[in-house]
């Protein structure tokens, strides 16, 4: 996924590429939450976006690249002004997975069984307004996370 250089008046784009290592999660979070606040999200929503992006990047580091820190994580942010939304697309070229098998865990069952892991996707779904997984030829795996600016009243 390449971002075009030219920008329309109604869009803002940001793009970060950073090594696939947990030590940089801190930098990714700081970057994403600062952009979110700059484009108008309140502290509260910015911290939800920050956590959702952390979860997606942690999955890339651990599952897509299996800890290979020489690989890169690609984070593209687009802010659409008339639609008032922020979309974050996290792309990897790693192992891949079947997104159709990804679904929210049954939290009640989860808690009864006291399993470890499997919380990331559930959190992303709870924190964001939209989440979409896509496996593209390349191979490229993408998670798209969307948050609307105007729904600070909504419950999620």
């Amino acid at each position, binding site marked *: 996924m390449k971002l075009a250089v030219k920008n329309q008046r109604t869009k803002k784009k940001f793009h970060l590429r950073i090594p696939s290592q*947990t030590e940089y*999660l801190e930098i990714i*979070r700081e970057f994403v939450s600062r952009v979110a606040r700059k484009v108008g999200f309140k502290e509260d929503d910015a911290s939800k976006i920050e956590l959702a992006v952390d979860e997606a990047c*942690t999955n890339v580091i651990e599952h897509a690249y299996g800890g290979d820190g020489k690989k890169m994580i690609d984070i593209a942010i687009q802010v659409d002004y008339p639609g008032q939304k922020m979309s974050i697309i996290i792309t990897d070229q790693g192992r891949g997975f079947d997104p159709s098998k990804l679904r929210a865990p049954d939290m009640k069952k989860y808690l009864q069984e006291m*399993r*470890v892991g499997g919380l*990331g996707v559930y959190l992303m779904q*709870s924190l964001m307004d939209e989440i979409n997984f896509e496996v593209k030829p390349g191979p490229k795996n993408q998670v798209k996370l969307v948050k609307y600016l105007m729904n600070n009243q909504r419950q999620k």
Partner: protein
Amino acid sequence: MNGFEVMRVDNGEVSVLRIKGFLDAHTASDLEREIQRLLDQKRFKIVVNFRELNYISSAGLGVFMGFIEEVRGNKGDIKLTNMTPKIFRVFDLLGFPTLYEIRDDEQQALQSFNNQK
């Protein structure tokens, strides 16, 4: 330097871990190591004080999930205190308050351990 610190204070049978900074996939192993050390010393009554923690991701939550069975199997518990609203929200989103005892402060958590005796 790592952005995460654990300070341990023993109080009789109970061990308090005061955690500070951020608890993510990078720092979770630091907390894991500290809790493992407690279990190695047969200390199963654990309080984790979140007062100075300013961030947690699912990797951080996973640490507690990883130990809770063993701890409870040994008549101990992991009780959590002093969560900021931001941190509490993450626990709450996942329904963790039904699984973990969350207290306002260390004093309350210590008392609740003592009442159990």
